[in-house]
């Protein structure tokens, strides 16, 4: 027998009169009739599904979906509620909603204290007023976003290293995704041979761009570490900034004009020609020279040489300038002349190469202190 009666559970407040046809199975003559009884509207049910992934965090976003069901296939309306609680179990209801999807932002603070837990509640009710029980409740622990800090350094950095006795400015800027106030703590781990009285590590006025700055004046070479610890009063995070301090490095020839010819080739000079070094890279002694009066930086030194036609050795012809002019009128067509420049810094280094070697590097690397141009006069 088919019936539309629902009688597996009571439905409060609803009485339906139902007419049902009863047909005797196999009867040769049909017999129809109605009977009356109370219909029962069944309760809807629901579950909370968290849609987003990841660990709930202060200041973070959460999203939920209501998975609703009604045995009667009635229209069901959700009722959301969101509470955030602090460590003292003080909770504040922040959000409500009546859509299938529920989006909330976890407050960073509840009653002035960090949020540690959130509670999402979901109730449902069908169009006839039946309420799903029990109400769904989801409790989630909330983590604190650790503060972050960006630490930067600036100074006479060359190839990742700094010279001693020249200030290095270290900037640190803390941040916190939760919006908590952060504090910075500075520690210095000097190189092994550093003498406290000879080094400086002191606060500078806070930069207008925010954060804090320290001045480090390393007194010896070695590996120095500046540790900056940022704290938001809940969590702390330390960042180490290694600073490699190396002895004053040899200067390096940069761009020059003209470019030196390859070995065995000769530049043809048929009109006055200026041989110039445009750039000397160095940790301390530069070209073009830094502004005068700089307490730490200086100007690179130049020594220019010429090997006259037929001469065996080079002769120094000028110093202190970045260029040498060669006038072919002072020579004869077919003359072979060699122009050479050597650079130096405040240490007065010795070029370790024989006179006949066109290029030379103290460090035997790509950093050259000597460069030569072979020239044919026409």
């Amino acid at each position, binding site marked *: 027998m088919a019936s539309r009666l629902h009688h597996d559970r009571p439905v409060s407040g609803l009485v339906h009169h139902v007419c049902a046809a009863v047909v005797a199975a196999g009867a040769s003559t049909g017999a129809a009739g109605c009977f009356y009884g109370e219909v029962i509207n069944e309760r809807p049910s629901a579950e909370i599904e968290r849609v987003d992934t990841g660990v709930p965090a202060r200041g973070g976003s959460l999203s939920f979906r209501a998975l609703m069901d009604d045995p009667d296939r009635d229209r069901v309306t959700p009722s959301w509620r969101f509470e955030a609680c602090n460590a003292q179990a003080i909770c504040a209801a922040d959000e409500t909603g009546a859509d299938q999807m529920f989006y909330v932002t976890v407050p960073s603070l509840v009653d002035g204290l960090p949020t540690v837990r959130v509670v999402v509640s979901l109730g449902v009710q069908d169009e006839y007023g039946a309420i799903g029980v029990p109400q769904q409740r989801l409790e989630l622990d909330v983590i604190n976003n650790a503060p972050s800090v960006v630490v930067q350094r600036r100074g006479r950095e060359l190839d990742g290293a700094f010279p001693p006795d020249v200030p290095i400015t270290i900037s640190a800027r803390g941040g916190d995704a939760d919006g908590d106030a952060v504090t910075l703590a500075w520690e210095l781990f000097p190189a092994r041979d550093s003498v406290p009285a000879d080094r400086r590590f002191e606060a500078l006025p806070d930069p207008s761009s925010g954060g804090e700055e320290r001045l480090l004046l390393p007194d010896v070479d070695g590996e120095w570490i500046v540790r900056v610890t940022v704290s938001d009063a809940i969590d702390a995070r330390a960042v180490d900034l290694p600073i490699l301090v190396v002895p004053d490095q040899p200067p390096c020839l*940069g761009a*020059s004009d003209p470019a030196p*010819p390859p070995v065995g080739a000769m530049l*043809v000079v*048929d009109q006055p020609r*200026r041989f110039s070094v445009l750039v000397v890279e160095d940790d301390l002694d530069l070209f073009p020279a830094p502004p005068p009066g700089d307490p730490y930086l200086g100007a690179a030194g130049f020594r220019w040489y010429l090997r006259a036609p037929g001469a065996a050795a080079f002769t120094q012809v000028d110093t202190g300038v970045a260029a040498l002019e060669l006038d072919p009128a*002072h020579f004869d*067509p077919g003359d072979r002349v060699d122009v050479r420049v050597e650079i130096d810094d405040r240490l007065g280094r010795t070029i370790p190469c024989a006179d006949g070697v066109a290029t030379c590097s103290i460090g035997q690397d790509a950093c050259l202190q000597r460069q030569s141009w072979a020239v044919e006069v*026409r």
Partner: protein
Amino acid sequence: MKRRMPAGSTLATAVAAALATAACGGDMASDDDAVDAGGSDGATGCSIAVSFAPTMPVAPATIVAQSDVFGSSGITTYVWRVTLRATGAEVPFTPLDASSRDIQFDAPTAGIYDVDLFVGAGCPSFDGAVNVMTPGANTRAVRLRFVPPASITAPPQERIVIVPGGADFAAGVLTLDAGNAYPINVRTPTATAVPAYVRFTSRSTPDAVIEGFTDSAGNTAVRLIPGRYDVLVVPTSAALAPRLVLDWDPLTTLITIDAGTALGGFVLDDAGAAVAGARVSLTSGGVPSTVATTVADGSFSLRWREGGTIEQVTAVPPAASSLPRLDAQVEIGALAVVTVRHATVPSSDVASTLVRVGGVIAASTEVVVDLGRAGAGTIRDGSTILAAASGSHRRTLRTDAAGRLPSARFIDGTGAAFITASGGPGGVAALALPLGGTLDAAAPVTITGRVLRAAGGARAEARVRATLTGALAHAGAPVPVATAGSDGSFTIALAAGGAYALLLIDPTADDAARTVAIASATAQALGDLSLPAALAISGEVRATGQSVGARAVGVAALCHLACAGIERTRPLGDAVTDPAGRFVVAVPDPGVAQ
């Protein structure tokens, strides 16, 4: 005013009178009225363009800045910041619409006004500048020469900017043209490889010369900015004539070099005897020939190519010879054989000549002898004299411990000698051979002066550097230097009678350098020497396709007009780009019309 997308101009020659610039992805506009520039980010595809009106504001001016944002991915908010670079002071502005998309600000004084715009929405900020000119500003064309380090794939290149006087100038973002690596192949008509020196002179920026060297297979790859070039090819082989290829297209790849025209002949001394070991060469239309060396019978054979109507023929005798170098201008034309004949001219040996400077014996020192004489030889076609040749000697001798010259024979001509007296500026002595046993140079002379700042007042600690010029200039000549005192006054000793260029340098670089020419040094007071005012040209250099600056690029500011020869290579100011690609170079201020 016009709106447009960020320009993609490169560092080709262009008159960049554009007075508004940006430092955020866009290139400095190269046309003369474009003032917009943009900030863009290749990663996000977002860009900002800001245009200014008027395009060439003159103080006092009211300037409208209009922004366009392209490709933003969110809500666009407009946050402007305007500052006067010279003082760093913020300049108030007025939004021209509710969203502040466009603004207007007053520029009461000349200078660089930095304009920054932040729009959020994942878009990089716009950092630009507008140059506000001084009323009546003179202008000066300045070549900015950029020489990238080896780490940047770009050839040396130049850009011309028109700098108005009276205020600093922002040149904006200057993008290095990476050019292309063109394969070059130098061959003979029979496809034989030619090792050679190859010089490419751009037709658009002729000062930015690129040089290369082909290998034994005749190949090289030269990075050039696309365009037309005049190419000088000087083969290593003396059997092939150098060639100047005009208006060459780099896509051509192949350069053909042949033997050119043969010119043979003999070099004979005044007695008609063969001179062996002499080097004979000529230039025609600025193109050199090969350099031929005479053999035992004095004969030579060089290869050349006619480039003009008159050729400059040079015959240099061997080093041990007392014969002079001969120079003559002659029309070779179709001649296949010429004779270089030394004339009979008296000569003298300077052996044991006592050399003194100011009466003091110049012992163990170098003496540069430079003298000449007309009619020292002839260029002949058989017995026909085609041209007279002048004779010259330029040799460096060294005195002995007694201050006496070694044996060296010179034609009896006139000229001068520079005596490098130890520790001093040296001496200049007029020469007229034969000498009378002594070569006396006057004692050094003292020159005084006072260096003043452009704005008035003494320029303390100005540096003074005197470089020998003229016929006696030579590498290794003493370079007297001095430093001005606190009142700007200086004293410097120079070789009496010497020609000098006196370079006055402001150590603070507040003012530009000044060169004072001294034709013949005598004891004199130069008086007050005011340095020219300087202004700063600033900019940012980027490699092609980069949104950040290029470091360690050499930047030289060079004169563009009213200079020639080596003066075109002497920088008015130089700089190097910092890690952010920025540079500041000081040049003389063109000033303001009175």
